[in-house]
């Protein structure tokens, strides 16, 4: 068993040497119990034949590293000037214009439910006989928004 394990280790070492191109030690091993012989290839130092398919994990040879030619690349374009302007446009229009102005607009949208309630109360009071002048002095707290938690789920 020890011989078998030793053979296994040697085989692994030689396999690693073959694939990684490490200069292989000139080891030859013959099993005493069987006729197994492990020996490095006669053409040592040369890597095994390249696999027909590339390793998927290797960087694609067609992949261009934008940082190589332009260390300040923002990832938009190869041309540094276009890349810079594209970044500026995205940040200016995306953040400064749309997000800032847009969120301000949305934040200041009136609460129409409140104003509709108030108007409904005023009109109801008017038709109940209240004088038209009472519309000038509306009780702003009277327009309570309906308590949604009491509604049916």
């Amino acid at each position, binding site marked *: 068993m020890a011989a078998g394990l030793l053979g296994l280790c040697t085989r692994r070492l030689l396999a690693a040497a073959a694939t990684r191109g490490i200069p292989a030690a000139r080891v030859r091993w013959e099993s005493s119990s069987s006729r197994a012989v492990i020996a490095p290839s006669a053409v040592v130092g040369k890597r095994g034949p390249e696999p027909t398919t590339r*390793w*998927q*994990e*290797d*960087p*694609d040879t*067609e992949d*261009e*590293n*934008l*940082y190589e030619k332009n260390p300040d*690349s*923002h*990832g*938009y*374009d*190869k*041309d540094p000037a*276009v890349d810079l*302007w*594209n*970044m500026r*446009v*995205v*940040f200016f*229009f*995306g*953040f400064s*214009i*749309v*997000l800032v*102005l*847009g*969120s301000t*607009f*949305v*934040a200041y*949208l009136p609460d*129409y439910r409140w104003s*509709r309630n108030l108007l409904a109360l005023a009109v109801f009071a008017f038709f109940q006989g209240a004088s038209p002048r009472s519309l000038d002095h509306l009780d702003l707290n009277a327009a309570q928004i309906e308590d949604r938690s009491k*509604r*049916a*789920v």
Partner: protein
Amino acid sequence: MLKIIIPTIMLMPLTWLSKKNMIWINTTTYSLLISLISLSLLNQPSNNSLNFSLMFFSDPLSAPLLVLTTWLLPLMLMASQHHLSKEPLIRKKLYITMLTMLQTFLIMTFTATELISFYILFEATLVPTLIIITRWGNQTERLNAGLYFLFYTLMGSLPLLVALISIQNLTGSLNFLLIQYWNQALPDSWSNIFLWLACMMAFMVKMPLYGLHLWLPKAHVEAPIAGSMVLAAILLKLGGYGMLRITTMLNPQTSFMAYPFLMLSLWGMIMTSSICLRQTDLKSLIAYSSVSHMALVIVAVLIQTPWSYMGATALMIAHGLTSSMLFCLANSNYERTHSRTMILARGLQTLLPLMAAWWLLASLTNLALPPSINLIGELFVVMSSFSWSNITIILMGTNITITALYSLYMLITTQRGKYTHHINSIKPSFTRENALMALHMTPLLLLSLNPKIILGFTY
């Protein structure tokens, strides 16, 4: 509405007439400005709806979806710039044209007043999406994916066309604004049961309902990044929007016809969440996660209570932004390793720490962490389904747990642990990618401060 539709259509001549180095800058700028204009639709002064013309209207349901649609176009353009950089100029312009055409159809679909017009535009959105998937997808499976996508949706929607024509004959009008005042209940008969099925199946396939969802993982996985983004963020919501609109005319059949679909959705959300735990393909995991989230929306729409409608609307907007962001993150991995296998790009937190922060935020919103709008949507749906039937809490609770499990599994697999030996050749994150993630996350976080604009018309 023309103030949004005409500029969107004009993005096409802008693309074709722009100089080579200006196509992305011009289209991104103008699409961002169009999204700014669309925010004006959130100003809904009337109790009913904002009627622009006989053909277009918007109400608190369609306005947030429209804003999401217009916001997504510049994000899609930014996300596509890298993988199209090697393509010839004509093909880049064609790609942008397809995205713009899709955008135009989507805007018109969400604002159509008339159901036949809605149907035609609903079908029209299939064409540019199919072209994007089959022409610009990366693997040979994209052709099969395109077929599944097209034919599943068509099979579901052709009965809808027949049903709509039949309803037009019966009522004389298919205008949304008039139909909401149509108080006549559908009489109980077999033909009306089939009418209900015909009306709903198109949207069930689009959502998709578990059982009719086979097209979704294929289409999402094989599509290029912009295709995945628009599919997950908007096209699924077309189904939800359609269901919310059409159920107004299908009472009282919905109260008993909904049962099998409710069961399928309740069970399906658990099944698809569990499948996510077993996925090796990152995009496939995100695709199945979309099915699970949309099953919640189907449950909400079929229960038909005010709170469930609020939950459905909020969940559609929240999921749109979250899943689009997850696809962008998956794409940032794919552009580096050219593989969608999760374990091939693991331990990225050490190498790309800022991107890890985006991964964390996206995973946390995906699992509906408070106080995000994802939680608001899910919570409203869970509460209304509990009110409908107490026992659904078991299924809903299980789904929420499994959602948390697979979101964290995805985060931990891609970000934590020791990175693989081959991965030290990956490039650092680009400003473009970080800006893209920020433009997804910022609206999501801002909405958690003011969720009432996305709670729909029952708020």
